[in-house]
């Protein structure tokens, strides 16, 4: 995000709180030394004075200056969507908080003849404001599309039909967020064109993903030709190999076990 900068007035590293998406990459990703800040600054000044280049490891914070902050609503939404180590409360999933077709072999989220769209706004590394996500959701809602219920963005909607998000979170910026919808395969082209239109009205980037269930032979003869006709060159994909199965014991079996113990 580039939210950390040296403030010329105070000569100290400062976090731009407006742009910071609370991804915690600075706290989680940097190694830490615990050196005295005054000593570190003095050493740097001396080296700078005699024009000697200081060449430290770029992923180390010498003074362990970053401290996690106790976030409160609505700012906590930034972290929920930006720090992939924190599971989303609504879905219990880390990362961007959705399983997409990665567990389709168990959930049956997208069936034959259906297409699941993942519209990820802000990725890669640009970020997105909640009000921009709402704009995309409104455009999708207006086309009569239904949003995936097991998705963190959907859980923040006050009106799932129109795609309206909670008003108090619209001023929050995120690393990225995924809007998910499911449509019959016949509507694929219409939705892609709708996303193309909507993304022109946003000041961010969009990573579009489209998933479907393969046929019994493991081939997709339906969706790929549509996407190729729309000009997409299909090269990369997440492929679910179909090895998943339900292994949890039925709820009744577990609850009776609790009673008898």
């Amino acid at each position, binding site marked *: 995000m580039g939210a950390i900068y040296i403030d010329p007035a105070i000569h100290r590293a400062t976090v731009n709180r407006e742009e910071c998406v609370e991804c915690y990459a600075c706290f989680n990703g940097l190694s830490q*030394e615990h050196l005295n800040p005054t000593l570190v600054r003095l050493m740097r000044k001396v080296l700078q004075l005699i024009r000697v280049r200081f060449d430290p490891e770029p992923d180390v914070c010498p003074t362990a200056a970053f401290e996690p902050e106790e976030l409160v609503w609505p700012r906590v939404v930034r972290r929920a969507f930006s720090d992939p180590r924190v599971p989303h409360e609504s879905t219990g999933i880390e990362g961007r908080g959705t399983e997409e077709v990665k567990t389709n072999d168990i959930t049956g989220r997208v069936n034959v003849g259906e297409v699941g769209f993942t519209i990820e706004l802000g990725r890669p590394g640009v970020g997105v404001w909640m009000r921009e996500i709402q704009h995309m959701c409104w455009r999708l809602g207006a086309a009569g599309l239904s949003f995936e219920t097991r998705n963190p963005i959907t859980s923040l909607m006050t009106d799932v039909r129109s795609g309206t998000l909670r008003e108090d979170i619209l001023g929050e910026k995120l690393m990225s967020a995924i809007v998910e919808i499911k449509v019959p395969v016949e509507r694929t082209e219409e939705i892609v064109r709708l996303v193309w239109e909507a993304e022109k009205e946003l000041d961010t980037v969009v*990573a579009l993903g489209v998933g479907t269930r393969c046929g019994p032979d493991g081939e997709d003869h339906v969706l790929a030709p549509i996407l190729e006709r729309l000009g997409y060159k299909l090269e990369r994909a997440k492929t*679910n190999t179909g090895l998943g199965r339900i292994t949890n014991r039925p709820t009744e079996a577990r609850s009776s076990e609790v009673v008898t113990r």
Partner: protein
Amino acid sequence: MCSRGKNDENAVARLRQFLEMALQFGPVNLGDARHGGALRPSRSMSPLAHWRRKIKPDFRAVIEGMDTATTAAAVFDNRPAAEDLMKAVRAADLGLSVNISTSIDGAEQCCHAAGLCRHSVGYSLGFEGKTGHLPNEDVLMLSTMCGHGMVSSSLAKKMIDWVKEGRRTPQQAVTYLARFCSCGVFNPSRAVRILEDARKRTR
């Protein structure tokens, strides 16, 4: 990965088993979505570590540190190894959802080698919208290697510059980037190739 309420009971043991199996086939990275990959930052580094810092991935720490039912990842830099892992995973019948993230062709061949038919496919259609905000292609290839965007494009750009200036080798530069990846899907072998290529040209 497992799905909450469907196959998450005793999933940690099965995810560990998956990582143990992957280890036999020479991965270039292993990781889980809660703790990151096989190269991790240190919370208390000695200043002397700058001169003798460990840059070897610690796969054992990933397996032993896996304590939550989350996503486990194994990264390979050659297809035969990935195919062998798929065969082993199929034979082990873990009951977990196993996804392959690579070229469509590569994934099909892995499935074929393991005697599997693809269940579902999620096509990545690339980046759209205001792409003027994006950095150049080399930087993008490095920073998007962590699917969650935890590898900053500023750091990736800096590492390309440092390699060009001879301040770090590609192998050293890659370790700095890999420590930021929160899920362990960062591919250090590919990153070295990208840095080697970027050293010789201007974008």
